[in-house]
């Protein structure tokens, strides 16, 4: 374990703990960003440039913003007054420790685990690109299709519900509607101007 790894791991764990225990939801989200950036730093420390930068681009650049927006648009202003930890937290820690120990024991004793360290693979961006376009092209396409479907679904959910009738009527009566739309704004502007003059 190099000192760099220890520092990064410590910061990541601390930020993850903060993300769970802070009272203010936005603070939690920001701590989570630090934890995700720490993970990216771990990838970079392992010389996996592509994965590291993709982690930053996707999680810090996009997912964090999504979380923060979701918090902002849905939360009520008040921060919770009751304790952050549930009453049975000691039992919870015990259970999770036991589960972790069992999983670790099972993983360490499984025959599938290689005994020696495999040679470090050449994970350049070019190699990753080649593999994505040849061997893993089908999973890539499936993910692409899934994401496109999700995108279209999100757009449909976000779209205002409009009946086809109003749609067509708008297209026909557009010029008059445009006048109506622009009129009040212009009138307001004119009145405001007059008001200023007086």
């Amino acid at each position, binding site marked *: 374990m190099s000192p760099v790894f220890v520092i990064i791991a410590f910061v990541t764990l601390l930020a993850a703990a903060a993300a769970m225990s802070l009272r203010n939801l936005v603070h939690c989200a*920001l701590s989570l960003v630090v934890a995700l950036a720490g993970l990216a730093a771990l990838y970079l420390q392992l010389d996996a440039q592509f994965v590291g930068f*993709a982690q930053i681009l996707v999680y*810090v650049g996009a997912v964090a913003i999504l979380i923060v927006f979701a918090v902002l648009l849905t939360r009520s202003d008040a921060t919770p007054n009751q304790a952050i930890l549930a009453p049975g937290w000691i039992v919870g820690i015990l259970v999770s420790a036991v589960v972790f120990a069992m999983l670790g024991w099972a993983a360490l004793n499984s025959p599938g685990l290689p005994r020696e360290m495999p040679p470090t693979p050449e994970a350049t961006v070019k190699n990753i690109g080649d593999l994505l376009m040849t061997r893993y092209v089908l999973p890539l396409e499936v993910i692409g299709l899934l994401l496109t479907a999700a995108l279209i679904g999100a757009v449909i959910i976000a779209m205002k519900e409009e009946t086809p009738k109003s749609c067509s009527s708008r297209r026909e009566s557009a010029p008059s509607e445009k006048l109506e739309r622009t009129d009040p704004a212009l009138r307001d502007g004119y009145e405001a101007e007059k008001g200023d003059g007086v």
Partner: protein
Amino acid sequence: MMLEIALELEGRTMFETLDQIFVTLKHQAVAFFPDVWQPLVSALISIAFIPLVFATLFAVVTIFERKGIGRIQNRYGPNRVGIPLTKIRLCGFGQFIPDGLKMLTKEDIVPRAADKVVHFLAPVVLLVPVLLAYAVLPMGRNMTAVDLDAGVLFFFAVGGAVELSVFMAGWSSHNKYSLLGAMRAIAQMISYEIPLILSAVTVIMIVGSLKTVDIVAAQNHYLFGLAHWFVFTPWGLAGFILFFISSLAESNRTPFDLPEAESEIIAGYFTEYSGFKFALFFLGEYLGMFAVSGLGITLFLGGWTAPFSFLTWVPSYVWFFAKLLALVFTFIWIRGTLPRLRMDQLMNFAWKFMLPMSLVNIIAAGAWHFLGAGWLRWAFCSALIFGSYAILGWGLMQNQKLGKRTYRFAD
């Protein structure tokens, strides 16, 4: 090590020495230190170069911008302050010294309702990624701070943190204008980041590498004396225009300055910042503009290469900074020329025009690669890009119902 440098210098002409003068100076400075310290010193010099040069450039460009906008708007810009304590005026180019001192000595006001920690961190979080982005820009031959294998990806990855800092500033201020500005900024940045990255993808496809140094090297050859820059190809031209518009939006410049629209929401997300923190936002914005222009130069305008083969004797860093200043001048010119967009116009433009065009451009770049050299690929790519531009433009204008402009009160 020293011997090698000395030998290298022997065989060089004067122009080559001039071209590599900063690299040589750095090598010589590093050679003074013991072997153990050399990597650290080398890295420190490369790092120190970036804030030093670009902060100076920022100071000069602010004056350049104020004078330029003044010229466009038919008034004087700053023209009084020269070198302090003397009578030399320098056409007002000394203005940044008192401006900087004023920013440093002003009181730093934090609103009582603000979230103190986040409010303090936001300008820092803005400036760090912006400075990091310079690490991969080749500013001259052999003048790249870090030649990363995934350089372009690194640039876009650190750019993502800027949105977070904008949110932090807007949210922590507890001010409705700040929050509105932050919301606008994030919506705009996310929307325009997609065409920005997709237009850069074309270059990566053609070069086959994410290394910025490789991208410049691919453009560093000449045909009939004219440089082989990507902007001189159909897909490159379209890509550069898309990239340039997106970079305008990413750096919150007019006509995309809705996040800090003074006439609507005071100063947007940094309304509640004063003193040096305000200066940091200002600095971060300008440095971001320089960085994204630098990437545009690297991707489409040949990086540090000369436009004509008979001009290759001019040092490479001169070309880089000349192109940078030319792009920054275009930014200022556009700011002095165009009005601000409306929010719906902004979003429609990003999603209905920029995104489809950048996708079409990717197809054109693929066709360019597979059709091989010859007139066919020029014809096909040009037809594809201009055809889709015409169809898209026609289709979007159909819904606009634009008639003859009538003046109600001006007549």
